[in-house]
C-alpha cells in the first residue's frame, strides 16, 4: 500500500483488525474496546483528504483502486461508524465476544465496501459482509435460527457470485473501475442483480424478512444498518437515473405496507418497513438527479438512525420478555417506560417534523416533484403515512400500549438505554438542524426544509393516520394479528420447491424401477423370439425339402432378370 494511507490502513481496516483480536481479549476488556474502536476508526477516516483516489496493486494487469474517498462515500462511511458505535454501546453489557467480533467485522467490511474504488475490492468486502453478518443470526442458536442463517447466507453468497461474474466480464473488457454502469450490458445487468439482492428488491427480499427476526436482539440492530445501505450506496454509485428502478421502488413501497400490516412478529414488521424505506431510496436513485442522489444519501442516514432505534427498542423487549410477537405483547410501557419512549421517537423519526426523516424525505419528494413525477410524489407522501402507520404506530401500540399479555419485570439494561438515547439524540439533532446533514451531501443543496407547505402536509398525514388508527383499534377492527406464519415468496423454496423435488424424485424412482422391469421384459421377449428362430429347435435350424429350395432360387433369379430388363 502506498504511503498516502494514514497508518498504512484503508478505512474500516481497524474494525476488521479489532474483530480478529476480539476473541483474544480478556472478557472485561472486550466490551469497552469494541465500543471505542468505531470512534478510533472514524478519527482514522478523518485523516484522509475529502476527495482522494488511492491506487495499489493490480489484478492480472489491470490497476486497482482500493480506496476512493468522495462526498457520497463519506456520508455512508460516517453514518456506518456512528451506527457501529451506537450499536456496540447498546450491545455492550448483553452480549459476548463472538457477537462483538462479528459486529466489528461486519461494520468494517461495509465501510471497506463503500470506500472501494474498484470491483475486486468491492467484491472482497461484499463477501466479507455476508460472512460476518450471518454470524449475528447463527449465534442465536436453535434449529430455526440456523436454518434461517443458511438461507440468508445462500442469497448473500448468490449476490457475491453475480458480482464476481460481472467482475470477470469487466476484467475482460479492460476496466475494473467501480463507476457508473449501463444496465443493458451483461456486466451491468449482473451488477444490478447483485446489488438488488442486498437492497431487498421484490422477490429477492426474503433473506431480510426471514433473517432479521431470526437474529439476536443486538444482531438485528447491526443487520438493519449495513448490508442494505451498502447496496443502496452501490446502486447510487453505479446506476443513477436507471428508469426501471422507479417501478422496482414503487413495488417495494406498496407491497411491504400490506405485509407489515398483517404480520405478527414486530421485528419482521420492521423488516418489511425497512424494505419500504429502501423503496424510497431506490426511487430516488431511479430519478437520478443531483437532488435525488442527495435525498438518497440523506435518507440513508436518517433511516440508519430511526430503523436501528426501533430495532434497539424491540431488542430490549425481546431481552426482557423473550418475544417480539404482537399477539403476545402489550402494556409494556409500565415496566419499560424509557424503551417505550425511545420506540415512539423511532416511529416519529420516520417523517415527523423535528426528526431527521422529515428532512431527508423532503429532499426525495422535492426531487420527484422537480422531475415531473406527480404520481410518484403523491405515492411517496401516502407511503410515508403508511409506513408511520405500520412500522410506527402499530409497533408502539401492540408492544407498549393496549392490554398486557406478557409481563416485563424491569426496564432495559443501561447500555441498551444508552445506545437508544444516543441514536435518538442524533435523530433529533439532524431533524432540528438539517443543515448539519445537508452540508455534507454529495451535491450543494439550496432547499429550505421547514416550509409551511411541507410541515402542514406532513402533520396532517401523520395526525390523520394516528386518528384513524386509533379509531380502528378503539372499534376493535384493527386487532392484534393472530400468531402464525405469513406466506411470502420464500414459500416457493421452503415448501413448493422441496415438495417438487421430493415428489419428482419419488416419481423418478418409480419410473426407473418400472422401466427397469419393462426393459427386462423386452429383453426376455426378444431372446425368446430369437431362440424360436435361431435356436437349436428354431425353424432356421430345421432341414427343408430340396424342391422348395429350388423354387425359391427360381423366384429370386426371375426377380433379378425383371430388374435387369426394365
Amino acid at each position, binding site marked *: 500500500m502506498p504511503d498516502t494511507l494514514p497508518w498504512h490502513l484503508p478505512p474500516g481496516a481497524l474494525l476488521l483488525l479489532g474483530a480478529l483480536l476480539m476473541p483474544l481479549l480478556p472478557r472485561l476488556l472486550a466490551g469497552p474496546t469494541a465500543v471505542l474502536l468505531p470512534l478510533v476508526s472514524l478519527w482514522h477516516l478523518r485523516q484522509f483528504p475529502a476527495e482522494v483516489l488511492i491506487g495499489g496493486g493490480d489484478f492480472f494487469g489491470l490497476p486497482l483502486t482500493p480506496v476512493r474517498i468522495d462526498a457520497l462515500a463519506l456520508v455512508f462511511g460516517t453514518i456506518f461508524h456512528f451506527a457501529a458505535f451506537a450499536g456496540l454501546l447498546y450491545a455492550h453489557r448483553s452480549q459476548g465476544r463472538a457477537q462483538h467480533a462479528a459486529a466489528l467485522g461486519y461494520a468494517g467490511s461495509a465501510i471497506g465496501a463503500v470506500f472501494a474504488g474498484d470491483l475486486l475490492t468491492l467484491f472482497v468486502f461484499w463477501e466479507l459482509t455476508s460472512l460476518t453478518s450471518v454470524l449475528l443470526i447463527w449465534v442465536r442458536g436453535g434449529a430455526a435460527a440456523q436454518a434461517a442463517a443458511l438461507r440468508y447466507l445462500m442469497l448473500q453468497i448468490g449476490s457475491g457470485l453475480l458480482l464476481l461474474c460481472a467482475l470477470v466480464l469487466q476484467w475482460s473488457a479492460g476496466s475494473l473501475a467501480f463507476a457508473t454502469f449501463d444496465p443493458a450490458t451483461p456486466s451491468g445487468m449482473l451488477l444490478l442483480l447483485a446489488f438488488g439482492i442486498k437492497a431487498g428488491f421484490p422477490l429477492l427480499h426474503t433473506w431480510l424478512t426471514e433473517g432479521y427476526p431470526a437474529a439476536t436482539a443486538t444482531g438485528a440492530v447491526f443487520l438493519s444498518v449495513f448490508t442494505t445501505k451498502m447496496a443502496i450506496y452501490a446502486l447510487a454509485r453505479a446506476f443513477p437515473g436507471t428508469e426501471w428502478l422507479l417501478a422496482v421502488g414503487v413495488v417495494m413501497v406498496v407491497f411491504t405496507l400490506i405485509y407489515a400490516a*398483517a404480520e405478527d412478529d414486530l421485528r419482521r414488521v420492521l423488516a418489511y418497513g425497512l424494505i419500504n424505506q429502501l423503496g424510497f431510496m431506490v426511487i430516488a436513485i431511479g430519478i437520478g438527479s443531483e437532488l435525488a442522489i442527495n435525498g438518497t444519501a440523506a435518507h440513508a442516514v436518517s433511516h440508519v438512525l430511526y430503523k436501528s432505534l426501533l430495532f434497539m427498542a424491540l431488542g430490549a423487549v425481546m431481552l426482557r420478555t423473550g418475544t417480539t410477537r404482537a399477539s403476545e405483547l402489550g402494556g409494556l410501557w409500565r415496566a419499560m417506560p424509557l424503551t417505550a419512549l425511545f420506540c415512539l421517537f423511532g416511529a416519529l423519526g420516520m417523517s415527523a417534523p423535528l426528526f431527521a426523516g422529515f428532512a431527508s424525505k423532503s429532499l426525495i419528494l422535492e426531487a420527484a416533484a422537480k422531475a415531473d413525477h406527480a404520481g410518484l410524489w*403523491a405515492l411517496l407522501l401516502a407511503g410515508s403515512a403508511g409506513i408511520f402507520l405500520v412500522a410506527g404506530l402499530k409497533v408502539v401500540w401492540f408492544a407498549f400500549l393496549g392490554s398486557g399479555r406478557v409481563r416485563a419485570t424491569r426496564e432495559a439494561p443501561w447500555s441498551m438505554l444508552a445506545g437508544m438515547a444516543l441514536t435518538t439524540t442524533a435523530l433529533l439533532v439532524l431533524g432540528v438542524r438539517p443543515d448539519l446533514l445537508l452540508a455534507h451531501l454529495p451535491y450543494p443543496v439550496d432547499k429550505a426544509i421547514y416550509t409551511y407547505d411541507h410541515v402542514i402536509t406532513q402533520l396532517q*398525514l401523520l395526525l390523520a393516520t394516528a386518528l384513524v388508527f386509533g379509531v380502528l383499534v378503539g372499534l376493535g377492527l384493527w386487532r392484534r394479528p393472530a400468531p402464525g406464519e*405469513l406466506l411470502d415468496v420464500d414459500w416457493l423454496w421452503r415448501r413448493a420447491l422441496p415438495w417438487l423435488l421430493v415428489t419428482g424424485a419419488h416419481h423418478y424412482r418409480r419410473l426407473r424401477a418400472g422401466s427397469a422391469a419393462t426393459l427386462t421384459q423386452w429383453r426376455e421377449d426378444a431372446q425368446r423370439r430369437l431362440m424360436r428362430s435361431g435356436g437349436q429347435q428354431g425353424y432356421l435350424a430345421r432341414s427343408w425339402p430340396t424342391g422348395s429350395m429350388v423354387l425359391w432360387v427360381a423366384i429370386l433369379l426371375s426377380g433379378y432378370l425383371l430388374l435387369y430388363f426394365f
Partner: protein
Amino acid sequence: MSARLGLLGAGLVLLASIGLELVYHPAHSAFGWIEFPGGWAAVAAAVTAGIWLLGWLVGALLRRPPAYYAGSVTRRLAASPGEDEDA
C-alpha cells in the same frame, strides 16, 4: 386513558392545521387536485383504511399455523427414510 388523551391531542392539532390551511392556503401548480384544506388528512385516512383492509385480507388468505414450515416435506421424509422406497 392516556391513549384517548393522545388521540384527542392529535385531533386538535389536526383541526388546527386544517384551520391554518383555511386561513393561508397558497396556490399549488401540479398537485392542486388534492391540496384543498385537509386534503392530505383525507388521503392519510384513506391510506390507513386501505392498508388495514388489505392487511386483514392478506392475513386471512396467507396466514398459516406457527409450525407451518416445521412440517415441511423434506423434514417429514427425513423423519421416515425409506417410506418412498416401500411405496
